[in-house]
């Protein structure tokens, strides 16, 4: 399970960072989303991966660490709000600047 988890994290982060480097706002936002998924999974794993253990002490012999789960919930909420904001901002910028380049102007298109 650990190997699969680590591989998933790696793939998500790689894709996220690659998309972040792109020049269009939409792909950048996709990259941010993937990166925040990777980060949330990473936070979750910081309490160690255990299967079949509830996050309440005393319900079973083993129990999972509840704190990372609370942290991930907070991080998901904040990440969701930020993504919504950046989508609106990108739309606003695309309408006002008449293109979706991250710099607000596309050197190649403008020259043509």
């Amino acid at each position: 399970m650990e190997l699969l988890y680590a591989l998933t994290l790696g793939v998500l982060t790689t894709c996220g960072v690659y998309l972040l480097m792109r020049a269009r706002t939409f792909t950048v936002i996709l990259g941010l989303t993937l990166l925040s998924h990777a980060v949330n999974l990473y936070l979750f794993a910081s309490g160690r991966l255990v299967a079949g253990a509830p996050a309440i002490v005393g319900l079973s012999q083993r129990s999972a660490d509840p704190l990372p789960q609370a942290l991930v919930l907070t991080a998901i909420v904040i990440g969701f709000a930020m993504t919504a904001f950046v989508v609106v901002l990108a739309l606003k910028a695309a309408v006002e600047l008449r293109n979706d380049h991250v710099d607000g102007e596309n050197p190649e298109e403008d020259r043509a």
Partner: protein
Amino acid sequence: MNHALILPILLPLLTGAGQLLFYRAPFALQRLLGFASTAWLVLMGIWALSTAGSGDYLIYQAGDWPAPFGIVLVLDRLAAIMLALTAVLGFCCLLYASSGTDQRGAHFHALFQFQLAGLNGAFLTGDLFNLFVFFEILLIASYALLLHGGGRARSRAGLHYVIINLVGSALFLIALGTLYGLSGTLNMADLALRVAEAPPEDAPLLAAASLILLVVFGIKAAILPLLFWLPRAYSAASAPVAALFAIMTKVGIYAILRIFLLVFALGESPVAATAWGWLWPLALLTLALGGIGVLGSDSLRTLTAYLVILSVGTLLATISLGTAASLGAALFYLIHSTLMAAVFFLLADLLGQQRETGYDRFSATGPIGHRWVLGTLFFVSAIAMAGLPPFAGFVSKAWILQASLESAQGLWLWGVLLASALLVIIAASRTGSSWFWRPGDMAKPYPLERGPLTLVSIMVGLNGLLAIFGDPVMGYLELTAEQLRAPGGYIAAVLPEVGISLEEISP
């Protein structure tokens, strides 16, 4: 338990929420609410300064959950200084905004209060994850404030600003996850103890986490490779917002002080040593780049943005010298530079409105109205900014240079700091002569609003007062530096049951 300590966070948060609820009520009511809340924050700041001045730590345990299980708020001298500075700066910006800027978009006052709540929370919290949450609160308020008023330049700058800060937040969470995975706690005091006792095989991971945190705070504070978002964002924001943002880079500096002088500072070979090693050269380069940027900028707002960068470089270089005197000097410079950066952002707007063409761009050479009054104000502010006597800039720079003599590296700081100061003087005198000296009088000057003019003059006057009362202020800051260098006191206050030696540390 003293519940007053949570007021600096709750009061602006509730005020902001109320302003959102009653946004259909008359605009004057929103303004009044904003003023009342911010004025109360100024009083709270004075209270915090006097309470923390006794040298005790004031602890607030949210929900009465004892540390390290619950979230604690901690008031020490550093937090009190930052609270008071934020409140005074916020009040001035709000006054300036009330001359009309606040009506150019929706919800200015509510966003302003949320921004203050986030700032105060970041300064008070004693929990690393809580610090992340308050960072997000102040950031999302700042995203919306930056865009206040609309326009193409703001959309462009806003996109860069938001994206780089979102990446910063992701990195922050990665560092937090690593720290929690290694130590099992996020309370700063508890974390400091666990990091100090960590087995040697964890050291590389801890160092990695500390460096990721340095990158995160470096984005906020605008250290050299991470500062290129700042000039565009700060020069695109409306004047009172940019003036409030003068404190935003200082949040990064505050976090660096708090984390690297507490969490990673204990133990036989402190984890923070790696970060301090990076900070010194980067800070000097930031300082140099700030000086060059000031000379090369094309408008007064961009010039001021580079002044902010210059002040960040100066601050971090002085802090990384690590002596008690240098920490105190850096804090004095922090107060001075925050005030003056705000003054210059407001001045750029004040002067730009009176110019016939070009707003605040240097390429325009048209005449300016009321040039005697405005010219005098600009002259006095430029003297205060460049660090010439009789203003606080001179006192702080003299103190920094004196403190840096104690260490061998200090001579580097002398060279770079004095060269940058010279560049600032050249840039300021060039601006002054081309705006006020060369062009003649304007035939029909625009009417001069007295309110903003008086406000900016008072802010420059405050800077003068800081120099006049330099002695007690310096005394307070020296005690603050001593408190910062002895993190044992902080840990003992948060975790009373843990015995800890109260020895001094040095970065």
